[in-house]
């Protein structure tokens, strides 16, 4: 891991890895927590995204001759000593409806992968996904890895509005849209549970970087029942 001074109050920590060999998101998640704990009142943002961790501190972290970089180094040393694998990531299961009503692009994805729609659903729902990063919009988790036969580049023309809860795939990643947004990913289903709830000011997002997630297939009746429950 390499620590770079990024700006007045920010550092970028680079973990070894690239697109085909990503670092374990739990390692970045643990590093993030160690750094938050070490700086207590003085951290402003600690943001893990794929292979990079952004650390932004307050001005007070730099006054009176303090050197935050040595504190960050010590956190990374602790991470290396304890080993990222020893901490069990959170496993989240969410109901997922792959009915054609919610899955505009599923038939095309299946066809391009040379399989039936059912096989495509089983493949997508059979995988455990890692949350590599949160971003794009509130509560949106970049998750991977999508099984090879389902991988397709983004759509050439993005849709102007993707409904809340849509399950999408693009390249090696899958995601659930927490808000209605424009987007260029392929839509293959919908989740009835909220991924972003601003009424919960402390934990507004279902996901955190480093979590594991599985999709549990449900039919349309179950989808509507669960959606009604969550909208109460």
């Amino acid at each position, binding site marked *: 891991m390499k620590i*770079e*001074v*990024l*700006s*007045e*109050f*920010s550092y*970028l920590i680079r973990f070894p890895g*690239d*697109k085909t060999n*990503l670092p374990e998101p739990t390692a970045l998640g643990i590093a*993030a927590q160690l750094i938050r704990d070490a700086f207590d009142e003085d*951290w*402003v*943002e*600690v*943001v*893990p*995204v*794929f*292979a*990079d*961790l*952004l650390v*932004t501190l307050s*001005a*007070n972290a*730099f*006054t009176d001759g303090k050197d935050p970089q040595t504190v960050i180094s010590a956190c990374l040393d602790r991470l290396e000593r304890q080993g990222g694998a020893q901490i069990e990531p959170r496993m989240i299961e969410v109901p997922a409806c792959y009915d054609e009503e919610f899955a505009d692009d599923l038939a095309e994805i299946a066809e391009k992968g040379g399989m039936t729609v059912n096989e495509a659903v089983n493949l997508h729902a059979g995988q455990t996904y890692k949350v590599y*990063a*949160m*971003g*794009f*919009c*509130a*509560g*949106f*988790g*970049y998750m991977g890895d999508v099984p090879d036969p389902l991988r397709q580049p983004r759509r050439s023309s993005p849709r102007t509005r993707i409904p809340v809860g849509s399950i999408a795939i693009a390249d090696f990643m899958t995601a659930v849209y*927490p*808000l209605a947004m424009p987007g260029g990913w392929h839509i293959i289903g919908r989740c009835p549970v909220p991924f972003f709830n*601003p009424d919960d*000011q402390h934990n*507004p*997002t279902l996901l*955190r*970087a480093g979590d594991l997630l599985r999709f549990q297939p449900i039919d349309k009746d179950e989808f509507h029942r669960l959606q009604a429950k969550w909208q109460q």
Partner: protein
Amino acid sequence: MATVTITRADFFASIQDLGRRRTQHMGLAQSGVADEYSFFRANYLAGNTVTTPVIEIISGLFSVTTDSPVTMALAGADMSARANNAPLSPWQSFVLMPGKVLELKNSTGDGIFSYLAVKGGFDIPLCFNSASTVARENLGGHQGRKLGVGDQLTTILERPLCPTLATPPDQIPQFGKPITLRLMPGYDHDRFPEDSKALLFSREYTVSTKMDRTGIRLDGPPVVWGQGDILSKPVALGVVQITNDGTPVVLLRERQSTGGYPMMGVVSHLDLFKLVQAFPGTPVRFVPADPARLRRELIRFYSFWGLV
């Protein structure tokens, strides 16, 4: 308390403060004022704690009335304002009388973002510990959106009045001049071709018309990356990203928290306040800068305002 009513809001005006902390790892925007100097100054002139929420007005064309006397302060862009039927220069506080109008008109070419503070601040609920509006999330500020005609904001104080102040001329920034952006090289800087780095630091760019609270695109010679897609990275405030067509974009407070374009580094925090006030066509040059030096300067700035 006083009720301040918006009577004109043609472009984009919103409630802002210093924005959110500790939310980007959840994908939430940082948000907050674009020009901290003018924001702090407006609050200082209104006799407030300098981080009190204010109205940020982009490109003028905005007016308010009040139902009882309110001490207000206007700082930032000069929008040919009038208050109580008389011309009003920015960088001072004044008392808006009941039934009278504070009106911001067209730009004079001197700045883009104006800040309107009232004594004691407006009564705005906090969202993620900030009063800042994020229109694309429908959260924060006044009902999660930009201000519109007929919106009513109430002051926290029963009698929002205090003595009025003016700003010494040497502390009033001059907008509308060519800008030098001090850039701390970082992120993908070292992986850009030598020619591209040399180009960015030697040629003149100009502020384009494509600017909002998420970022400012610059016109000028395209900066070539030429190495295909890269992994998304966390995006700091002031990042210079290079889009696929080679356009440098300086990212501001309402940027997304992740970005997949290659990035050249981060612009000095203090220089961003000048950049956001610059009109389309303003010349911009980049010079490489040392973070340690800029950090000392930024700590002095926050000390001046009593925030360190």
